[in-house]
Structures are given as structure tokens and as C-alpha cells.
């Protein structure tokens, strides 16, 4: 029997602001722009939105956004924790609400002045001694203060174990930068990247160089989730939600899961894979394209293994075979991703997932039946499979 959430809901609208390094407007304004754009895209009135979901890191509260865009009664409002790990988690909460009849039309949003405002990795400070603050305090006094430093610790171990090279990381960066060349919204548009450029770029946190890092972006993105029936009556081809899950595993920390026996895999992403394949009744062979979370290039190679596209340690071989490119086994982040389009904390990767189902990506591979999208790496995470109606 198929899972009760499978194909009950769909992404009916996607909305994006312009992406820049200095928006000049408030984060509330970005969230409102993205929300109105998602409603316009779907052909649904903002007054019909009865649920808002964002990230705990988002500064715009649900009711502020609701008032701003002229929504009426709300039946659902919540925020999902753990940075970019929240991305498809917001969709899961929307799906559960819509499938259970709690809400009808839910906006998932993330809007941030991620470059001109509060930047990531600026350290943690505060007076209240919470368990989260204590967690970070095992790293902060040593000067381990940035996402790059935390991810590099795992990446170095993984690369050492499996013989992954700097060139392999470079291949990921270049593949996604190539996609950005057809996407005018992308930061990397008109800025091609060669392997020479990649290798010459400054070392930031060994083994990670500048081009292994995602962008810092001002912008917003909103995703409209509604029932499958309603989505069929709206303007866009529905991106059916075949499966969506959250996943956190034993020994999980935020970014610093350093105390597990093995450090050369992503247990939480393997759990997300198992759960999302179970829910959707699909497997890696059914997936034609992906938007794997890409705050860092190394995460892409590791996720190829987590999601079963290859065995342990073989992610680099897939990348060397050109798997991520448009004519490869698994075209990935065809909009440029967080590395080369924009860093909207993974929300823009979900938008590209919907485009790939609609057939409207600026790099549309042929015959896309199913797209896999993942949430943040190294944090409690999640996975989403979108499919054709």
C-alpha cells in the first residue's frame, strides 16, 4: 500500500526576488516579494494563504508576513530549526498540514540579507547558557567559528579515506558554474570558471578553497504547497510531492557531528534517503535529476553516496564521469545551486526542483520524471522527491 502522504500535495507556485549582494530593502520586504510572486505564479490570491512556514534563522515572523501580503485567517504557522537543514523540512510540515486538512494553501519561505545584513559564521554570543550555546562552546574558543571550518574537518577525513582530490571538488564547482551561464538570476552568470581558476583560488579551510564555498546573497524565495486537486486547477503544471522527510541520527550535532565512529559518510542523509525512497516507493534508478544541497562542493560528492547513486567512496568516480552535467547520469543544480546561483539557504534549490518537473529550467534535461532535492548537510536534514502528475 502506498504511503498516505504520497502524491497528496504539490508545489503549485514558486516565487523569487532578484538575487544581489545588497538588496537595499528589508528582509520582510524580500519575503513579501517572494510570497506575492509565488501566488502570482500559481494564480492564487494571497488572501487564500492560510499557512506560513519558515526557518528558525529567518528574521521575518509568520504573522508579519501574513499581514504584509494581506492574508486572512491562519491555521498554521511554524519555523523549522537547524539552518539549511530546514529547507525541505518546511515542505514536510506544509505537506502534513495540507494532507491532513489542517491548512489548504501554505507558503514556505526564506528571505535574507545574507550578504549586506547578518552574514553566516559571524560567531555566537549571548548571556543565556542554553544547551545549544554550550554545544558551540566546544569549538568557538579554539577559533573554529565558521561553517567552512566545521565542514572542512569532515571533508578532509572523507577525501583522505577515499582519495578524493581537489580537482574532484573543482569539477563540482565548474559543473554548477557552467549551468549558471544560462541563468541570468545567477551570481555566476557571465562568470565562467576554469580548473586553473579553481586551483588558483585562495585556500580558506583546508581542503576547501574559495570556489568550494556557496554564495552569500540578499534575496528571498517562496514555495506554495497545496493539495494535488487544487494544484491541477491552478496556472502551473503541478510538481507532485512523491515523498518528503526529515532525518537526524545518533550522535547528531549541528555541523560538528565529530564524535561518531566513522566520519566519512553522512548518516543523517542516508536516513533521509531511506525514508524518502520508502515513502515515495522509488529508488535511485528512478531519479533523473537532483538539486542536492551544496553549501560546499564536498557535500555533493558525499551525497551521491548517501542517496545510493553509487557505493561508498565512488562519488568521485561519478563526478569524474560527468554525472552532474546536463547529459550525465544525474544533472545536478541545473540553476547553478547555492554555489553559483544564490544562497537562499536551499529554498532556491527547491524552486529549481519544481522547474525541472515543469520543464522550465534554463538547463532542462530531457525526460525528467523525478527530481530529488535535499536539505542542509552536516545538520539535521531532509529530502524531497518531486514527480510528474
Amino acid at each position, binding site marked *: 500500500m502506498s504511503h498516505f502522504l504520497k502524491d497528496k500535495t504539490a508545489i503549485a507556485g514558486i516565487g523569487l526576488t532578484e538575487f544581489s549582494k545588497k538588496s537595499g530593502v528589508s528582509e520582510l520586504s524580500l519575503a513579501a516579494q517572494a510570497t506575492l510572486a509565488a501566488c502570482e505564479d500559481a494564480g492564487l490570491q494571497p488572501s487564500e494563504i492560510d499557512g506560513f512556514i519558515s526557518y528558525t534563522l529567518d528574521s521575518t515572523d509568520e504573522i508579519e508576513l501574513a499581514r504584509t501580503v494581506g492574508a486572512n485567517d491562519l491555521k498554521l504557522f511554524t519555523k523549522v530549526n537547524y539552518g539549511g537543514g530546514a529547507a525541505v523540512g518546511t515542505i514536510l510540515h506544509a505537506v502534513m498540514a495540507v494532507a491532513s486538512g489542517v491548512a489548504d494553501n501554505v507558503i514556505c519561505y526564506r528571505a535574507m540579507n545574507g550578504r549586506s545584513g547578518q552574514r553566516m559564521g559571524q560567531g555566537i554570543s549571548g548571556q543565556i547558557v542554553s544547551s545549544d550555546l554550550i554545544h558551540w562552546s*566546544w569549538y568557538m574558543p579554539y577559533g573554529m567559528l565558521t561553517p567552512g571550518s566545521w565542514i*572542512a574537518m569532515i571533508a578532509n577525513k572523507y577525501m583522505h579515506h577515499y582519495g578524493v582530490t581537489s580537482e574532484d571538488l573543482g569539477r563540482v564547482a565548474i559543473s554548477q558554474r557552467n549551468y549558471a551561464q544560462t541563468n541570468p538570476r545567477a551570481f555566476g552568470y557571465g562568470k565562467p570558471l576554469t580548473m586553473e581558476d579553481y586551483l588558483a583560488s585562495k585556500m580558506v579551510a583546508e581542503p576547501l578553497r574559495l570556489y568550494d564555498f556557496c554564495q552569500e546573497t540578499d534575496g528571498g524565495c517562496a514555495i506554495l504547497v497545496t493539495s494535488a486537486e487544487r494544484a491541477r486547477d491552478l496556472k502551473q503544471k503541478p510538481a507532485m510531492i512523491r515523498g518528503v522527510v526529515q532525518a537526524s541520527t545518533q550522535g547528531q550535532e549541528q555541523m560538528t557531528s*565529530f564524535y561518531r565512529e566513522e566520519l566519512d559518510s553522512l548518516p543523517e542523509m542516508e536516513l533521509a534517503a531511506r525514508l524518502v525512497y520508502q515513502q515515495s516507493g522509488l529508488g535511485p534508478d528512478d531519479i533523473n535529476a537532483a538539486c542536492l544541497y551544496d553549501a560546499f562542493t564536498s557535500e555533493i560528492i558525499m551525497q551521491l553516496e548517501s542517496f545510493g547513486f553509487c557505493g561508498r567512496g565512488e562519488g568521485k568516480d561519478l563526478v569524474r564521469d560527468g554525472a552532474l552535467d546536463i547529459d550525465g547520469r544525474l544533472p545536478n543544480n541545473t540553476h547553478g545551486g547555492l554555489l553559483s546561483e544564490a544562497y537562499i539557504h536551499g529554498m532556491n534549490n527547491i524552486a529549481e526542483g519544481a522547474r525541472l518537473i515543469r520543464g522550465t529550467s534554463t538547463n532542462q534535461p530531457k525526460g525528467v520524471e523525478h527530481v530529488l532535492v535535499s536539505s542542509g548537510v552536516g545538520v539535521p536534514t531532509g529530502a524531497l522527491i518531486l514527480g510528474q502528475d
Partner: protein
Amino acid sequence: MAQSFRMKPPMGEDNGWWWQEAAEGRLAIQRCTQCQTLRHPPRPVCGECHSFDWDHVTASGRGTLCSFTILHHPQFPGFDYPLIIILVDLEEGTRFTSQLVNCAPEDVSFGMPVEMVMHEDPDGFRLPMFQPAKGAAA
């Protein structure tokens, strides 16, 4: 006295005792008094037997390097770059995140034996760091 640059850990019920041990020169590892399981970072309950009773042992300070990263950017005031951050597998069996000192970046390697040196800031704040083990090759 020199200005302190280092972000100090908050001292709560679950971790303050550990930093007090460090202040007195010791690298502590929390131990469940019921099932004797060692755990780090410290937590109020044993995940194995769910006992809230614990004490601690003092680590020998010897271990091997499990992983590392060498930080170049961004450069925060007060730290010396390139800054070598390491994971150490302590010989007692727990793992610890720290800094490697007295070692050139090109000499860092996976599995290298290391030993603790207690670092003291000009303001008197102490935290365990590691250096290549002396006489490890012998």
C-alpha cells in the same frame, strides 16, 4: 594584563565543571558511575544506561590525530594563522576537538600521535591544546 580575544565558553551546570578541571591543568572525561561509559562532550545523562550519576576521569593526554583542517580565512583577531584545528582520538576512547601547536602545517598527518599541552592565555584562561608526541617514534 593583555586584552583577551578568545570567546569564553558559557559555564552552565552541564559543562562548567569541565572548564574548572582545565583551569586546574587537567583534561577531564565525563564517566557514568553506573555503567562506567566515558562520554564527551559532557551531557547530564548517560545515553547507554540513562543514569544521571556521573564523575570524571583525567585523560592521559595521549592520543592520535583523527582529522584536521588548516584555517586560513577569515582571520579572527588574536588567533595565529594558519590555524590547525584537530580531532584527537584520546587513548581512553573518547574524541576531542582542539588545536595543534608546535607543528608546521605541512607536518600534520592523519593518525599522527599527539600529546596534550595546557595552553594559558595572558588573562589566565586555560584550554587543552595538543602537539606532536615527543619520542613517539621510539
